[in-house]
């Protein structure tokens, strides 16, 4: 299992592997929003938690199509399916690799970008915490979406359509935690919910993903 994780990480850092691109996309979206909504400080402070979470979510989303599609195209997926590694394990490792290459960098970089959007000072800790708790769920849910659409050539957009509604609870609790944090309110509920979603996703979705992969390989 660890072999797959290492290979995926290695592929990610090689030329064309896309490591760091999710981060750059995050940055650009965050920068684009002021161009769209105008530069007023109060407005930006107000919408910062939401924009940061939506941007993080989109950045995670955009790198999903690499999870299985490349392996499917070059035949690795069929070979993996006939290997001793159960597909459930493969799905789990893929999600983990995705989080390490996308979710983790996003989490680490988000506070810096909060700065650009004049995020309230009290909120930084909650931004970091909510992303740390929530982004693994984004990766795992995304892996499931990728498994569903792996048979469709360039199914990236379809996958987005399937995955984004699944992202809604994570987004709501995540952004809410930051907003409440910014205003000094209690954040225990949304943070607990985030952790719960992540735990539940990792417990159940590998099985759903493996089932979808099997159907697609048939």
């Amino acid at each position, binding site marked *: 299992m660890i072999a797959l994780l290492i290979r995926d990480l290695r592929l990610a850092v090689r030329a064309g592997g896309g490591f760091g691109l999710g981060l750059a996309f995050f940055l650009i979206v965050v920068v684009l929003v002021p161009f769209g909504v105008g530069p007023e400080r109060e407005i930006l402070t107000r919408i910062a938690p939401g924009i940061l979470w939506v941007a993080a979510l989109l950045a995670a989303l955009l790198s999903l199509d690499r999870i299985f599609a490349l392996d499917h195209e070059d035949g690795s997926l069929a070979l993996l399916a006939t290997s001793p590694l159960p597909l459930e394990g493969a799905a789990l490792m893929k999600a983990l690799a995705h989080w390490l290459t996308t979710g983790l960098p996003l989490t680490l970089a988000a506070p810096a970008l909060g700065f650009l959007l004049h995020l309230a000072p009290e909120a930084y800790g909650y931004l970091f915490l909510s992303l740390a708790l929530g982004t693994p769920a984004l990766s795992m849910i995304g892996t*499931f979406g990728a498994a*569903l*659409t792996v*048979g*469709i050539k360039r*199914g990236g957009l*379809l996958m987005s*359509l*399937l995955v*984004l*509604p*699944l992202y*809604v*609870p994570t987004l*709501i*609790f995540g952004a*809410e935690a930051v*907003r*409440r944090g910014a*205003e000094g*309110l209690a954040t225990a*509920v*949304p943070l607990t*919910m985030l952790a719960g*979603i992540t735990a539940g996703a990792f417990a159940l*979705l590998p099985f*759903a993903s493996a*089932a*979808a992969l099997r*159907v*697609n390989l*048939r």
Partner: protein
Amino acid sequence: MSIWEYANPKKFMATTTPVIPWVSWASFGLILVGLGWGLFLTPAAENFEHSVKILFVHVPSVLMAINAWFMMLVTSLIWLVRRHHVSALAARAAAPIGAVMTLIGLATGAIWGQPTWGTWWAWEPRLTSFLILFLFYLGYIALWSAIEDQDTAADLTSVLCIVGSVFAVLSRYAAIFWGQGLHQSATFSADKETNIDPSFWWPAVLSMGGFVLFFIALVLIRTNALIRLRRAMALEARANRGAS
């Protein structure tokens, strides 16, 4: 004789085709009576004026939208476990109907909201969770239409439906939490159904029953249409195979 016999497409078509007109007419009748009674024979509630009467469309469509998804969940499970084609096709047939019901619910709600709250749309938890349900319908339909092989599509959409159901419920609670948050929209009060006049009760029930039958009729018609489509595809494939 087991109920699963009707899972045979031909048997299903033979059984349901004669039923469809009855169900259809019954649903039209109920809806007509329910709406007629509701629209013309009930007093306008004091604080809502006549706009309240859209309730007789709004509430049934909203309920059917939820029930359609529930039916898709059940039929998806049946397909995954017992692999009855009719079951998968029924789920597929219900999806666009459910989506349209969701849209009708949203639209009538909006029309209702305009005189009531003075706005067409508010980001209120119930409305919001319905919008999310609509997104789930969209994703489900998109996945069906993106996959050419019908059995593969049935399998994958079934898995999506099951996982999606969990997340749809989760979304609803998330939306409630979100809407109840510190920024509750002041224009909206949540206790809208508290003062429904008892005279509204019967027409509402009739119209609800009408919508249920209407939904059943539509699902049957669409399922039959999909069965015929599959049959045409099967015959064509057979013809191609004979040729080669």
